């Protein structure tokens, strides 16, 4: 079936919906999403969204910028960071005017709490449900503006004609039918890919589909080797305990009852950035100082007192009980680091326009924003609360860029066979006879990534993982599906998602192998120091018939020269 | 049809329920617990001749019929989806309520 819109947006998280609110002003606009909009993973964000509002003590954007750049281990592009932090306060106010129910100070202003790596109280929040209230508010705004949604449409590929992107092909999950959406502008906002790892805070839907779609279409992906591990996931599920807990004052304690962060980040203690804290926890665990020597440590909230916990962290209280059986008012919570955020992704300019290559050429009519994009404002390590901000600020900017560009983009036609290739591919997947189980391959991939490409990496581990991915690819070709029907075939969805996991995990591992230094979230035991002379660069991985190759582009530095990073 | 909100009906249903509760206590204990003679012709007619009892019974009758039949109408509204059936039910309810009210009225006023 053929649909025509001026703008098609893929993904209904914060970034996608915020972009839609802008793009809608310039013509018809629809959002395709594989889960219903309010089920997007933005809703899981707990802790907060950063902005130098100064509602809790002096703050201004330069301080925010410095914290972000330092947090990124100097890999962030500073012109982009400047945009992010300068637009932050206005963005928060705008969100508030849309109806976001932020928590409040006694005098009625937006409350702000501390967060890792931010030296000021900068995180605006709504208890520990910040992403949830933002996501619902944006959905409500989209309802108000009558944005058209196609919920439970799984986008599979781009429509390309005469070298330009003309739209996307999507599978309607309910019926199994293919739809072509022709558009003058296509915005990708498909979110992150934490599902590449065994222990993750991410949703099942976070399989990095957008990255794989663009990569398969020949576009490069930037800085894929940088994957953030959040220090505090519940043990054993990996479900997140917000950094807001530490922002409120929680302690991390090892098996010897020691607040060990004093040995790793004496000034910031528990509120050091995530890469530092995760490495600290993992080191304690690896050196046998986990609780009872196990693979976890404790997060202790008790000294905060029941009132504060119930008021500021109600969700954590409930989740701790349900997922670890611990009453956080009375006992410490068992935690471990958990794969959380993808710093890398689809390279874009500062207005969300997708880059064709590392030299900075821009693709016509193609945009990306949110976690799937790499602007890059997070560099090698994102600070907490900066990614919701990234999704909203650059979602807005991508939407505005669409508005500005639309008049110059002609209305094209779809090639008559736009759906054929996809249909053939799906048939192949559905009909394949074999003896491999999809779940087993996925599990092996995730376990391998966790072990070999996790918090600590090395040449040998990474090589082992690269080989493992090769084997898994082979096994993937022999997966046999039980469900061969058209109606709501979630097994087929999972298979397609597994295919994208296999696509980009290879890029993560390869990027990590090539980058012989430690920077931010990328930590090599065989190359433990940062090497600015050689590696102050962004990597761009692109597809070639011989496998992925990496190109490199310099980091844009405007205000803050790289310095040693200490907390 | 005029826009029907339901708030007034809802409120009166609760109000009448409360009042009926008080009245029904008096009525039921009198008729069923104060000795069998209370239910015989002589006693009943004597009470009907007292204007206080007369008004008691009239109010009681009216409240119960309003409350009860309005309740039936609400039940119809819950389960009947077709508009024509609803109108039919409404007509029947009004006829039943009016009919019973007139019979009751005649009974109470005769003595």
């Amino acid at each position, binding site marked *: 079936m053929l649909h025509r819109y001026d703008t098609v947006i893929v993904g209904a998280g914060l970034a996608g919906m915020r972009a839609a609110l802008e793009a809608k002003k310039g013509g018809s606009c629809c959002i395709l999403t594989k889960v219903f909009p309010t089920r997007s993973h933005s809703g899981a964000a707990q802790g907060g969204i950063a902005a130098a509002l100064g509602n809790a003590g002096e703050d201004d954007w330069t301080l925010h910028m410095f914290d972000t750049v330092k947090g990124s281990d100097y890999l962030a592009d500073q012109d982009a960071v400047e945009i992010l932090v300068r637009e932050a306060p206005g963005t928060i106010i705008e969100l508030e005017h849309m109806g976001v129910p932020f928590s409040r100070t006694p005098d009625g202003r937006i409350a702000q709490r501390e967060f890792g790596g931010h030296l000021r109280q900068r995180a605006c929040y709504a208890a520990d449900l910040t992403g949830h209230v933002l996501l619902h508010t944006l959905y409500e705004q989209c309802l108000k503006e009558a944005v058209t949604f196609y919920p439970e449409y799984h986008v599979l590929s781009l429509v390309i004609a005469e070298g330009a992107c003309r739209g996307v092909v999507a599978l309607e999950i309910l019926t199994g039918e293919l739809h072509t959406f022709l558009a003058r502008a296509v915005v990708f906002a498909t979110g992150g890919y934490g599902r590449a790892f065994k222990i993750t805070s991410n949703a099942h839907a976070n399989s990095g589909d957008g990255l794989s779609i663009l990569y398969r279409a020949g576009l490069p992906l930037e800085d894929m080797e940088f994957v953030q591990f959040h220090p505090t996931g519940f043990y054993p599920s990996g479900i997140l305990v917000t950094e807001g807990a530490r922002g409120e004052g929680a302690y991390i304690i090892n098996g010897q009852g020691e607040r060990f962060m004093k040995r790793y980040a004496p000034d910031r203690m528990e509120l050091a950035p995530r890469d530092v804290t995760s490495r600290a926890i993992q080191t304690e665990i690896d050196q046998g100082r986990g609780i009872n020597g196990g693979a976890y440590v404790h997060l202790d909230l008790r000294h905060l007192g029941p009132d504060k916990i119930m008021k500021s962290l109600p969700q954590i209280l409930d989740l701790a009980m349900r997922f670890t059986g611990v009453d956080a008012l009375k006992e410490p919570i068992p935690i471990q680091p958990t794969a959380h955020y993808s710093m890398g992704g689809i390279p874009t300019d500062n207005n969300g326009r997708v880059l064709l290559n590392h030299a900075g050429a821009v693709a016509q009519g193609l945009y990306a924003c949110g976690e799937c994009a790499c602007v890059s404002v997070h560099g090698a390590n994102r600070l907490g609360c900066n990614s919701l901000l990234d999704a909203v600020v650059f979602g807005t900017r991508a939407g505005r860029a669409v508005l500005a560009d639309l008049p110059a983009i002609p209305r094209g036609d779809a090639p008559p066979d736009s759906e054929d290739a996809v249909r053939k591919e799906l048939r192949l997947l559905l009909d394949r006879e074999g003896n491999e189980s999809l779940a087993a391959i996925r599990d092996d991939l995730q376990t391998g990534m966790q072990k070999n490409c996790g918090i600590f990496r090395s040449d040998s581990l990474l090589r082992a993982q690269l080989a493992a991915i090769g084997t898994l690819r082979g096994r993937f070709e022999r997966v046999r599906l039980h469900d061969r029907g058209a109606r709501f075939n979630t097994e087929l969805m999972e298979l397609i998602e597994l295919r994208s996991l296999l696509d980009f995990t290879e890029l993560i591992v390869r990027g990590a192998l090539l980058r012989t230094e430690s920077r931010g979230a990328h930590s090599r035991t065989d190359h433990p120091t940062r090497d600015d002379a050689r590696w102050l660069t962004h990597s761009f991985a692109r597809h070639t018939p011989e496998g992925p190759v990496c190109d490199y582009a310099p980091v844009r530095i405007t205000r803050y020269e790289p310095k040693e990073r200490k907390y | 049809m005029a826009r029907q909100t339901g708030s007034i009906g809802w409120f009166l249903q*609760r109000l009448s*329920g*409360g009042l*009926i*509760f008080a009245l*029904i206590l008096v009525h*039921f204990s009198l008729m*069923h*617990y104060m*000795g*069998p003679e209370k*239910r*015989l*012709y*002589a006693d*009943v*007619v004597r009470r009907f001749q007292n204007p206080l009892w007369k008004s008691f019974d009239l109010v009681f*009758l009216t409240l*119960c*019929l309003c409350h*009860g*039949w309005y*309740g*039936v109408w609400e*039940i119809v509204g819950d389960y009947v989806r077709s508009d024509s059936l609803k109108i039919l039910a409404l007509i029947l309810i009004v006829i*039943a309520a009016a009919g*019973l009210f007139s*019979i*009751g009225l*005649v*009974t109470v006023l*005769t*003595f």
Partner: protein
Amino acid sequence: MRSYRYRWGEGLWSHLFHRISGVALIVYLSMHIWVIHHLQHGQTAYDELMNFLGNPLFRMGEVMLLAAILFHGLNGLRLVVMDAGLGIRKQRATFWVVFVVCAILVLVGGLVLLIGS
């Protein structure tokens, strides 16, 4: 096609009993009005009817009437109180209070009706 499998809880029972008792009461009230109307036919006819209605079968009916009135009335009050915003979170407990009070009163009152007078 839709599924309607659901576990019944206090709220549903209360709703169902309230509904059934309400309908039973309006049915009874209709008959009652019609019966009282027999006053028109004079003393002997009426008292004979009353005597007839005094037999054990109708006595049982009276107990059921009492049960209907008590449950509908007490639960009705429970609903009114909660509609006013009070005790909503205790709705399950208050249902049982109504239920038990009702059961006791029906037992005592019913015995009196059956044995007494």
